[in-house]
């Protein structure tokens, strides 16, 4: 009886957790090779060749990876600094609630907020104008929809960094780093040595999988780059949706080719992360 119950559970797992992903992947693959699709007539490599020749996907991938990488590095650095310097203060009742508050802000709201603050007629532009530093709104620097993705990076940091602070605080507590630090001190280590040789290695080794996962999440972020990004290069998800959902039916196959490329790259990264030492997320 119990065995039957377990089998039913597995069947549902495959139906809900595996089949949709497999179906989506196979459909996109077939579409990218011209096997299915409105105007497609049969197997062709034409769409892949076009995608590779245009180079937009590589540009977009590089751009997305750079933006996600910079955001993660800055977020982790600030979060580490905050967690290590204000650990005791964050345990107090008021602050312990305060540090959770940013988690209530979704990406779309964070992007809207950044847009309101940093646009040419935004809040900071008004302050700078009233201080007499600029004469017109157009002299305010491009901080949203800009070439350097400053708006996107700022928003990514504000969205991701609070999570890392909470994560590092918990790791510090669970790994009893205060005791380890005390021990290192009593063995003659300086504060700097305790930081660089005890606290940081333990925290980073314990959390690097999650940091890598957050890099992947940011790589595929959609709504924030959609509001704060520029026309070209676009971040990957925005590019894929733009290609798949546009009116030029010939371009749809190219969109699916980019989606397949993205899926394969992310799959390889995730497989590498989780097969390394056979660790899964909750075993970290």
């Amino acid at each position, binding site marked *: 009886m119990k065995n039957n119950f377990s089998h039913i559970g597995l069947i549902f797992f495959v139906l809900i957790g595996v089949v*949709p*992903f497999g179906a989506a992947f196979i459909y996109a693959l077939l579409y990218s090779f011209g096997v299915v699709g409105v105007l497609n007539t049969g197997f062709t490599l034409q769409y892949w060749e076009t995608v590779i020749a245009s180079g937009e996907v590589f540009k977009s991938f590089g751009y997305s990876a750079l933006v996600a990488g910079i955001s993660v590095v800055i977020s982790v650095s600030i979060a580490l600094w905050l967690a290590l310097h204000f650990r005791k203060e964050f345990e107090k009742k008021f602050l312990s609630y305060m540090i959770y508050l940013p988690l*209530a802000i979704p990406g779309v*709201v964070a992007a809207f*907020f950044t847009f309101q*603050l940093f646009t040419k007629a935004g*809040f900071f532009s008004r302050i700078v104008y009233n201080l007499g530093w600029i004469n017109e709104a157009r002299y305010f620097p491009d901080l949203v929809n800009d070439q350097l993705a400053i708006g996107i990076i700022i928003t990514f940091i504000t969205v991701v960094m609070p999570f890392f602070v909470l994560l590092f605080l918990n790791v510090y507590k669970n790994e009893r780093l205060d005791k380890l630090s005390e021990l290192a001190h009593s063995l003659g280590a300086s504060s700097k040595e305790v930081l660089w040789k005890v606290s940081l290695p333990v925290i980073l080794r314990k959390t690097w999988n999650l940091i890598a996962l957050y890099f992947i999440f940011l790589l*595929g972020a959609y709504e924030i780059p959609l509001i704060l990004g520029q026309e070209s290069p676009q971040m990957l998800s925005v590019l894929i949706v733009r290609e798949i959902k546009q009116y030029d039916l010939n371009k749809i196959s190219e969109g699916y080719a980019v989606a397949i490329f993205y899926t394969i790259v*992310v799959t390889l990264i995730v497989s590498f992360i989780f097969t390394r030492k056979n660790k899964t997320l909750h075993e970290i």
Partner: protein
Amino acid sequence: MKFNWKPYILTLLVLLILFPFVYMVLLSMSSEWRFPEILPSYFGLKNWLKILSSDTGIFSSFFISVSISLSVATVSTLSGFFISRSVAYHPKKKALTLLTYFPYILAPVVFAACLSYFFLKMGLFGNITGIIVAQFMITFPYALIFFSSFWNERTRNLEDLVATLGGNTLQTYVKMLFPIAKGMLLICFFQTFLISWFEYGLTSIIGVGKVQTLTIKVFLFIKEANFYYGALSCCLLIFPPVVLLYLNKKYVFNKLI
């Protein structure tokens, strides 16, 4: 005497955390806030009162979002709880868990774009049911991963003990498993509710603009350059999660790590 800079940094941090909340409320209560004014020329409840009476659709969007998120959270929490047992006790647990991560890690919007053909064929395109099904495909793997740590050796021993004492499957769940998993069920419900509540990309593709959840509404107002209503929608989007976070903050991260 050494200068103590910590209180200043902490004060700045608290101000930075509160700033978006205050700014959104301020913006939602403003109108005619033109460049270069630092403060709005009108500040009051006009916009908030309008959403109750006019056809802005914010209020209906709020209820659509609540019903979608409640449905998604309920179904994914319960199915995740039951199905994760089969996965966790399976000899190939690690491979199955790895499979679980993919739909969750892949950008939901890309997943939805690739799945949209099947939704169209099944008549799930542009309606609430379609969005619930699509969001469920993202929240279900989360619930599965979340509960996988619950099904450990201790739980298995307890199940065996109930069976030895003559309990059937129903009694095992009702009298033993549900009571000990109560806290985790609640946290998973909150988390999946938030994933659904915050979702935009997937909802916009499967809903094709016909189902206007609050996140879709925010985008529409941004496109229309109606920032006051946009901020108002943001406020409605932010405050339920604030309450939920307050309720479960004690449990969330200890369970995640």
